[in-house]
């Protein structure tokens, strides 16, 4: 086989998610009253990148065969924190951004430490830490409020050169600065190896713990970038429980749509980004076809079910029935 075929096989999940998103987005814009304009793209992009950041965060943890149920709460917490700190002069704003991102990193690191060194199951550990993070968010913002440096907010949610949505550019930059180095580093490979077969990875002398720890910590950082952007869009901080939970669950949906295996070891954050964008477009599609927004959860559920079923076809090829349960 030629090299490109292997590349294609590896990227199949990502390409599929890309295809689904493009198809949905084309349907959306062609049926939109305004059509394919910079404005429509900007709005869609601003809505999409929030989930995209959180889905990237989820991807990192899912690759290690774990799951992070606190990403939505880190997203909420950093939103509340940003509504206090990302304000004032340039220096103060910069300091605020660093503090918000540092908080996200710390939250992720705590998750990682508990899961790896405390040997708790990721699902339990992150439900607990998620509740703690939300509790802190609530103390920071008992009621929605606060403010943000509006110049920065407008710059990052506006358009570059009048056409390119700035939020998309930031998303791309984050992919290049966080995801690409991670996925190509020794730590990233350790995270994949640990997710695919922890025993084999251990036997091969792979730094499993450091790889997993880096994945959890970076997940916190990515969720914080999402929280920062939420503040830029809304100009406020809001400790909304339902929204935090929704982001956690949608991030898992986006990850699955993006071809990342929940069993670990397989998939890419880029796939998850397209998964997130596609998942967001479902709501927009309902809007242009004049469906009642009440239909949205139903449609999202159906699309998710279809996507997950595609992955289950491999079970039909199993010859030893005990392998069903592996």
């Amino acid at each position, binding site marked *: *086989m030629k*090299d490109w075929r*292997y*590349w294609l*096989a*590896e990227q199949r999940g990502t390409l599929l998610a890309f295809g689904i998103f493009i198809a949905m987005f084309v349907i959306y814009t062609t049926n939109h009253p305004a059509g394919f304009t910079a404005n429509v793209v900007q709005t869609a992009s601003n809505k999409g990148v929030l989930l995209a950041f959180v889905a990237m965060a989820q991807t990192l943890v899912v690759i290690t065969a774990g799951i992070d149920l606190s990403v939505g709460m880190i997203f909420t917490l950093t939103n509340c924190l940003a509504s206090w700190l990302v304000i004032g002069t340039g220096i103060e704003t910069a300091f605020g951004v660093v503090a918000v991102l540092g908080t996200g990193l710390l939250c992720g690191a705590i998750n990682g430490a508990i899961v790896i060194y405390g040997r708790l199951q990721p699902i339990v550990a992150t439900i607990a830490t998620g509740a703690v993070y939300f509790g802190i968010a609530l103390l920071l913002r008992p009621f929605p409020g606060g403010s943000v440096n509006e110049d920065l907010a407008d710059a990052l949610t506006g358009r570059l050169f009048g056409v390119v949505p700035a939020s998309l550019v930031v998303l791309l930059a984050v992919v290049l600065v966080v995801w690409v*180095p991670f996925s*190509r*580093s*020794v730590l990233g*490979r350790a995270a*994949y*190896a640990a*997710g*695919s*077969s922890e*025993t*084999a*990875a*251990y*036997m*091969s*002398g*792979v730094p499993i713990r450091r790889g997993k720890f880096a994945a959890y910590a970076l997940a916190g950082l990515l969720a914080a970038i999402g929280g920062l952007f939420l503040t830029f869009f809304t100009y406020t901080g809001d400790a909304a429980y339902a929204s935090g939970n929704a982001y956690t669950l949608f991030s898992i949906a986006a990850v699955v749509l993006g071809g990342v*295996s929940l069993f*670990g*070891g*397989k998939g890419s954050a880029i796939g998850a980004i397209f998964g997130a964008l596609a998942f967001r477009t479902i709501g927009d599609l309902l809007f242009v076809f004049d469906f009642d927004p009440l239909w949205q959860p139903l449609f999202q559920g159906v699309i998710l079910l279809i996507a997950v079923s595609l992955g289950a076809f491999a079970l039909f090829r*199993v*010859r*030893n*029935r*005990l392998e069903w349960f592996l």
Partner: protein
Amino acid sequence: MDGAVPLFRMEGISKRYGGVRALEKAELSVTPGSIHAILGENGAGKSTLIKVMAGVVAPDEGRMILDGNEVNFASPAAANKAGIVCIFQELSLVPELSVADNIVISDPPTRFGMIDRKAQRRIAEEALARAGGADIHPLALVKDLPLSRRQMVEIAKALARKPRILILDEATSALTATDVAKIFEVLKRLREEGLALLYISHRMNEIAELADQCTVFRNGRNVASYAAGSKSDNEVVELMIGREYSHIFPPKPVRAASDAAPVLEARKLSWADRLDNVSLTVGAGEVVGLGGLDGQGQRELLLAFFGVLRGLSGQILIDGRPVAIASPAAARDDRVGMALIPEDRKTEGLMLPMTVRENLSFAALDRLSKAGVIDRAAEQRLIDDMVGLLAIKTAGLDIPVGALSGGNQQKVVIAKWLMRQPRIILLNDPTRGIDVGTKQELYQLMRKLAEAGAAILFYSTDYDELIGCCDKVLVLYDGAVKRELVGAEITERALISSALNIHGENAGPRQGADA
């Protein structure tokens, strides 16, 4: 290789797992530029020995000396760094990563902090070529490769770590003859390059072709070391056996082997590349053993009877009538009446956190319930019977089964199936890891069940058990029945020599035992 300075020595290495003695003051010394074969039966301590060498388990006592300096390996990575690389029997490849990723996994080449894919590709291609697997594409995912190719990748991966001592544990067991020939060339070339190779294999002809030096292990000790070719196959088998025979088995009934009507019969069962035209019959009251080396298809055969395997070819007959068994639920159905005591009681036999009572009645719930409601009184009666029959020692029926000792856990697994009064009982190495007292009780139980008319098919990795318990033993090799031993023919010598397939490919079934 006499007079050569040993590169690596192990002195007085002991290792216990709970009460089981895996290694007892074992000694080994390894010289560069030679191939050293390690021989021994299942459970003789070979695997533990190399795990100690490779830093996977820490020895309880003893010293390891490399280049004249004492060493201790805290992890496989530490052993690798010292130049000791092991190719394990259970593969250590990460399935979702590519071949190249796997080959460099311990120490990937980096550039600006990221993995250098070009360098990685080059290293992988070189290592594959050296390992004789140049036809494997470095970008292929390991999970998509067949087993024999994966083994080549394992070897390439080991070579990429620039080992001084390379350990191969049953490295050829999954390979075809052509692949084996390729690997042998590679190994011989490595020997010329000055590597020390440790070669663990059950295949006597391979050892004869490759080894310079042989060491035989028995019961956790090294019992003999000799230059390859200085002992005959029979002498080697003697060395491997040589242990006292324990009289803990109930007497076997005296009867002609063929007087029982077959209850369970297999005709030309084949499955994937693991079972090859297996035919056998088990009569009522008969205990039939499955022998041979570990992993020659015995487990798959039991799973095939129990309806776990898909795509099985051949026929299974119960009471002379062909049946299709599509699932374990169908196998335990009264028309078949089959029970399987699985090999791993912790995952396939018991639900550890649930109570003894719940575990006991799982398999028989359909018989104990009317319209979906469990008849508590009937359940209690049956459970009392079983606890009495098997003498299960438990502080109560409502404690988690995980709190029981290994032997009592195994009794619960067996009792659970006996509650259905099965006519056909398949046992998959049921005495592994349990104490001698419980073993003895199980042997007696097995005989009692047979006397009550059950047909028993019994796989064991312990040759003593096969000799002591079975009326007939089928020895499997490469998924096929190599030999059938009946009554007095079942001796340790006959079992081992047929398990090693020493008599060559044309040793037909029912040849007279040579003991």
